[in-house]
Structures are given as structure tokens and as C-alpha cells.
């Protein structure tokens, strides 16, 4: 009784992974791609659990599902602020002296 259910579980997991992977690589909205990537990481952690690798599942749950999402989101914001011209362009050269002078980007 357990093996058909597990096989169904495997097939559903693999199909969802492929579906998520394809869409995260092909959507034109990059924010949607990042959210899909976070979900992809969560499902990868489930896959490692199914593959009897709890060590890898722990690492993936902490890194793939927990840390890469914030990484991508903050990088996305940093790039968007550059695009909108909100960010100071001379951020690294003379940041020390005029840090207090620059207006707060909103």
C-alpha cells in the first residue's frame, strides 16, 4: 500500500519541480522568478528528505529556502534603485564625507 503512494509522491514532486524550474527560468517578471525560486528551494528540501538525506535537507532548508530568498530580494532592490536613479551613483568613492549630506532615498 505504501509503495504506490510513495511513487505518486515522487512523480508529483518531480513534476512540480520541473514546472517551477521552467517557469522561474522563463517568466519575464524577475520578482516572480525570485518567488518561484524560494518555492523551488522549499520543494528541494522536501526532495532531499525523500532521498533519505536529512543532513542535506537541513542545509537546504536553512540556505535554499531561508537565505537565498533574502539575498535575491535585496539584490533586486539594489539593482532597481540603480535603475530608477535613486541610489547615489558615486556610492563608493566619496561616501565617507558626504554620507550625511545625501537625502534619504524614498
Amino acid at each position, binding site marked *: *500500500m*505504501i509503495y504506490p*503512494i*510513495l511513487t*505518486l*509522491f515522487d512523480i*508529483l*514532486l518531480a*513534476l*512540480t519541480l520541473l*514546472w*517551477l524550474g521552467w*517557469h522561474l527560468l522563463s517568466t519575464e*517578471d*524577475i*520578482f*516572480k522568478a525570485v*518567488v*518561484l525560486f*524560494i*518555492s523551488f528551494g*522549499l*520543494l528541494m*528540501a*522536501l526532495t532531499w*528528505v*525523500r532521498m*533519505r538525506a*536529512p543532513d542535506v*535537507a*537541513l542545509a537546504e*532548508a*536553512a540556505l535554499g*529556502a*531561508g*537565505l537565498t*530568498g*533574502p539575498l535575491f*530580494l*535585496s539584490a*533586486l*532592490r539594489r*539593482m*532597481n*534603485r540603480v*535603475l530608477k536613479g535613486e541610489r547615489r551613483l558615486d556610492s563608493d568613492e566619496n561616501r565617507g564625507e558626504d554620507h550625511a549630506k545625501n537625502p534619504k*532615498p*524614498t
Partner: protein
Amino acid sequence: MNWLHTLFALILLLTIAVGVIRIFKGPTAADRMMTAQLFGTSGVAILLLLSTGMNNLVLLDVALVFALLAALATLTFIRRTWHDSGRRKHDYPL
């Protein structure tokens, strides 16, 4: 191995697969982010079911890590994305 637990894990995985639709259709960025949050919750439930189904207590720790870190992405989203460019229909021009 308990087949009933595995069956319910399968059903929860099915709900995750259905929930992906909200990421595609979600009108605002917050809808998409909340879907990822929901996946974290479903993932905790699946892990708890599988830990009795596969008779492996380590999976409880994985579920603990899931539950601890699920809020992190949402918090980053609120602080970094929603904070300065949200509250409208969200479509990054990249």
C-alpha cells in the same frame, strides 16, 4: 511505515502544486510572497507527516528549521521590496 501519513503528505503536496497558480496569477507582489510563506507552512506539515511515515525523527529538526526561517523571506520582502515600491500593481521592468 504508516501509509496513511504518507497519503496525507501526498495530498498536502498536491495543495502546494495547486498553490503555485497563485504565484503566476497573483495581482500584487504581496500575493506571490504570501504563497511562498504558505508553502513553508505546508512544508512543515509534510515534514511532520513524513517523519512518522518514514519513522525518522531527524525530520522534526528539518521542520523546526523550516518554521524558523520561513518568516525571513517575508520579512526581507516587507523591509526591502514592499517598503519603497509596493502598494500598487507590481511589475518589475527588468
